[in-house]
């Protein structure tokens, strides 16, 4: 992984949902070197007034145009500052950082499960999968219709299913409720969103083999051989991969501010060993 400090120029921006922005930056190096699941860090400018670099998922990256997009909700300083930028303004982004999603080459049916802004962590995977001719179903959960990701921003090929907690759009309930209907169909699943949601999806996935009694891609190849934690193979062979988004410090692996508890009892650094993990690599109870 080569980490570059890329000067990125804002070329376009839209408020796609109330308080949520989609910004396009011209950053050719980043656009060509990134994979789905990776992230960038915003290097705070002199006036940003923050201590940490904020991580953002690489929402989309287009090597042809050199455009990388970020999707974020305006919250505090870093995002408020970002939202105040105007086309032509330049920022520094460090990246691509972290380990990407690994799709099994034989996988035909991909299930993507996004909670709220977690969509930003999965959006590029949808692009990659569609381009590779895979079938993609995206389950999306939000509090209410006002926070539902616009389907117009997704590739046409993606099957898009929405749940809202207040029932104002789609299924009345949580996105996790939708998942069981697709577990038999899917070869692999990928999730990004609040930790509690990821944990719920992980619990579902863990019980899947027992419920379905079917072979999975994962079982076909290499049961018995244990792949090292954090290895591409471990992720590629997993039924469920999750992208974990939480407060980062250094994003260089030094500060240990970002750890999640690993299933083996060793803390894992989300910034380095992640942000994408095989769900089975995480101790979901101790998180």
């Amino acid at each position: 992984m080569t980490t570059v400090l890329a000067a990125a120029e804002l070329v376009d921006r839209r408020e796609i949902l109330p308080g949520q922005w989609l910004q396009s930056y011209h950053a050719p190096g980043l656009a060509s070197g990134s994979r789905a699941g990776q992230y960038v860090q915003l290097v705070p400018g002199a006036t940003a007034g923050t201590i940490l670099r904020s991580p953002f998922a690489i929402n989309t990256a287009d090597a042809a145009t050199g455009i990388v997009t970020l999707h974020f909700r305006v919250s505090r300083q870093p995002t408020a500052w970002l939202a105040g930028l105007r086309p032509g303004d330049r920022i520094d982004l460090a990246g691509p950082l972290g380990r990407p999603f690994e799709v099994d080459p034989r996988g035909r049916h991909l299930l993507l499960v996004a909670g709220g802004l977690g969509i930003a962590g999965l959006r590029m995977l949808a692009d990659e999968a569609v381009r590779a001719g895979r079938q993609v179903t995206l389950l999306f959960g939000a509090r209410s219709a006002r926070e539902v990701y616009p389907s117009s921003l997704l590739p046409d090929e993606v099957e898009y299913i929405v749940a809202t907690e207040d029932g104002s759009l789609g299924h009345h309930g949580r996105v996790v409720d939708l998942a069981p209907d697709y577990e038999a169909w899917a070869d692999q699943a990928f999730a990004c969103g609040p930790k509690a949601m990821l944990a719920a999806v992980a619990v579902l996935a863990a019980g899947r083999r027992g419920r379905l009694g079917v072979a999975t891609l994962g079982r076909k190849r290499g049961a018995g051989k244990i792949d090292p934690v954090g290895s591409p193979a471990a992720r590629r062979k997993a039924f469920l991969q999750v992208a974990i988004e939480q407060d980062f410090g250094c994003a260089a692996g030094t500060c240990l501010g970002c750890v999640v508890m690993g299933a083996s009892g060793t803390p894992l650094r989300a910034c380095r060993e992640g942000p994408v993990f095989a769900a089975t690599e995480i101790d979901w109870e101790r998180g």
Partner: protein
Amino acid sequence: MQAAELLPAPAQVPPESVDLSVDIGRGLTLPNPILAASGPFGYGVEYAELVDLHRLGGICCRGTTLKPRLGNPGPRFVETPAGLLHAIGLQNPGVDAVIARYAETWASWTAPVVVNVAARSVRDFVEIARRLDGVPGVAAIELNLSCPNVDAGGSLFAADSSAAAEVTAAVRRATDLPLVVKLSPNVTEIRPIARAVAAAGADAVSAINAVAGVAIAQVAGGPSLLGDATGGLSGPAVKPIALRIVSEIVASVKIPVIAIGGVTSLADVLDFLAVGAVAVGVGSAVFADPGLPVRLVESLAETCGTQGMTSYRGLIRTAGARALPRPRGASA
């Protein structure tokens, strides 16, 4: 418009000719006065690709305990206004693993590595020091006294002159390594504590460690306190506190003082030198800018050079309380 500005500009000195070396005592000379403070810089190795490590004055590695520690559950960080509250909980693989994994690499660096040591009893502090003693690559020990002393009901070593002196003296006997004692700002009076560790054999004092603080983390299920209930506040927010503590320490001991707390710019370095520190540690600021410490070395040399100084030592202890007359007025 200041008097000094009327004087003819002194002859410039090339930055590379400015003497930046710092004598910490017991044979340890830092190549320059800018250190990576313990914690944010990890073991240094993580930044080897990003940063010219050999340009640093020194690297204090993260806190090392006798046995491995898993640290606190998350969230471990909350950003606060101009600050950072952390509750890492001293996650580390233990002293033996630290030596096994990193010492050889450290030995190949020109920047001296200071191993930051944390323990909950005098005995453990001594044992860790013994294991570090004589290990090539370990240039010095920094005692992190912001640790609860289980033999004294859990009050911090750093909170009490006699506990601080006891552990300092005990480690002093156990090793010939240069010994830096790191003090906590969370005390009513730092001066007696600084005097006690100096008398007990510390070669240098470093300060400040993080300031005790709390933040509310919004987690599922309602508000909750960060990590271990109390976290450590660092970053620019604490600089005025660090500047106060450092000036108090400088006024009470003769050994060198390494100033830490909120450094993000050359102006901060100059401020700490002005109150009497001989060296400065950079902590939280490396998160946003890992290259900062090296740039500070360069700009310090340039500043000295521009002012015609052949050594940075002329910048040390130049601040004093203003000479303006004290106000009259009845005392309260």
